[in-house]
């Protein structure tokens, strides 16, 4: 792919006194990615996004969007083709939804005004566009936030936990919208602590823990790092146990109740099934159990949740 990547963070650091919120983060989002930025609450996701959007200055390192640094070049240049929001999108409560969008369009370029109706239609807010935002529900504000972002016709969309606080239907609609935008060619960086959401939407992920990236890559590669465990039920458990134990690539073979359990790669599992057949042992169940993203996530983040990982002191 030509040109600089949509997001390239290198050695990104943010300190607040002795607190290190983001610690040497390296991150690359490629064009077309729906990139999941995963981490427990307080891990540094939002702080990273704020630095990307030029809202806070990094203490060290740099972040570039399409090769442009918001700190060095200013948001006007650096955020060209970039939109998004951090935490919940916020608007002027005493202005209507439409007026808020007009204001933001004028802050960009007046020609954006012509797209307001289209955007309101897209997020299904056209009927309430004349109402003051102060009377909007959380979900409506989230949708207005998406509309405000799309007004800029972005090539890169940075979304910070866009489904937080939405009801199940709202979450479904928001995810459908993200999928649709991704299909239209918009690169999306989606910060979330909802694993199911990331698994459903994202092709690549970075996992952040206490301000540091502990994994960056594709979901497939992440899931592949987990050893698959198989459950096997056979007509002759004792003989099956002998066959499994002697199979190269099969580990931790054991009997648990009426079934055998062992860890193996796909090749070893296939060899075992052939061997069982050749030895005329019937297979009644043969089930692979791959570690879920949640298990991998908990493993990488040390099982942190909530704010336990939030602001930490620098270990110097």
């Amino acid at each position, binding site marked *: 792919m030509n040109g600089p990547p949509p997001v390239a963070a290198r050695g990104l650091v943010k300190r607040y006194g002795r607190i290190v919120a983001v610690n040497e983060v390296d991150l690359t989002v490629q064009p077309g990615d729906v990139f999941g930025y995963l981490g427990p609450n307080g891990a540094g996701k939002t702080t990273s996004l704020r630095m990307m959007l030029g809202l*806070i200055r990094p203490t060290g390192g740099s972040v570039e969007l399409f090769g442009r640094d918001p700190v060095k070049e200013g*948001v006007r240049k650096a955020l060209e083709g970039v939109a998004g929001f951090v935490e919940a999108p916020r608007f002027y409560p*005493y202005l209507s939804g439409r007026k808020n969008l007009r204001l933001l369009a*004028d*802050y960009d370029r007046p020609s954006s005004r012509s797209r307001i109706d289209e955007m309101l239609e897209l997020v299904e807010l056209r009927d309430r566009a004349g109402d003051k935002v102060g009377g909007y529900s959380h979900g409506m504000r989230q949708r207005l936030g998406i509309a405000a972002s799309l007004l800029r016709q972005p090539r890169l969309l940075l979304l910070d936990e866009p489904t937080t606080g939405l009801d199940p239907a709202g979450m479904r609609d928001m995810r459908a919208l993200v999928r649709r935008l991704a299909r239209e060619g918009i690169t999306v960086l989606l910060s979330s602590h909802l694993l199911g959401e990331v698994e459903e939407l994202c092709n690549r992920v970075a996992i952040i823990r206490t301000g540091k990236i502990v994994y960056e890559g594709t979901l497939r590669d992440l899931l592949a790092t987990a050893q698959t465990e198989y459950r096997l039920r056979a007509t002759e458990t004792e003989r099956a146990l002998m066959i499994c134990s002697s199979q190269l690539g099969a580990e931790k073979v054991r009997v648990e109740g009426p079934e055998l359990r062992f860890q193996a790669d796909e090749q070893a599992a296939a060899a075992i099934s052939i061997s069982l057949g050749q030895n005329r042992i019937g297979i009644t169940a043969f089930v692979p159990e791959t570690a879920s993203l949640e298990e991998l996530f908990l493993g990488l983040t040390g099982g942190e949740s909530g704010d336990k990982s939030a602001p930490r002191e620098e270990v110097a």
Partner: protein
Amino acid sequence: MTAVYRWEVAKLLAQKRTYLGLVAAMLVPLIFVVVLQFQSGGPNDVPLGRYIRDTGLAVPFVALFFMSFWAFPLITSLVAGDVVASESHNGTLKTILTRSRERGQVFTGKVLAAFTYTVTVVVAMATVGLVAGGIAWGFNPLTSLSGTTVSAGHGLALLAASIAVYFLPLAGIASFALMLSTITRNSAASVVGALMWALFMQLLTVLPGVDSIRPYLLATQFEAWHGFLRVPADWDPVIRALWVCALYVGVPLAVAYVVFVRRDVTED
């Protein structure tokens, strides 16, 4: 820049506090005229006070004098102290600072909107004062502070010039309120802080032993318009107000600008 300024004004127009100050500024001369209609005495000790029943033209001048103590400082602070802090309160700073405008442009738009409001309330007060005074006592020639008579038309021109120079110390108060608004991100603290500062400046002018610095105090500049009401015009207080107020405006605005441009937008 124009778009930012226009929207800052539009935001002011959409908020109740804007009208609170505006209506208060318009009510003061109205109440003043109504009260004087039912009383025989008058504000004889204040500039042009003794001529107030001679012409409606004197009403805005007398109101300018009275409202410089706390009414205009309060009305100015009410909006200028809120103009940045309300963005923090609503969490909208992050919304506008991630669009295609640099922070300096946003800040400039806010300053200009706050100044526009300040001018508007003074002009609104003067207009209501003129109309109410004109209805009550006619639109007759004005007696200047030197005792000479000036035509009603000339009196109007003097009022316009007086409002222009009266705006300068008010801009100083607005700038101070803006600085507090930017630093504290708290609307109430900024409004109260700016009002306290304005009252402190008033207090300084009446303290003994401050004769040498009195001409350079902010509150003194509220009297600069008296220079226009003398024949011939006394330009010294006007010119001093220009450069003294430039300092009272420039320093807090420079501080506010640096804070606004460099600050980390975290919770707002």
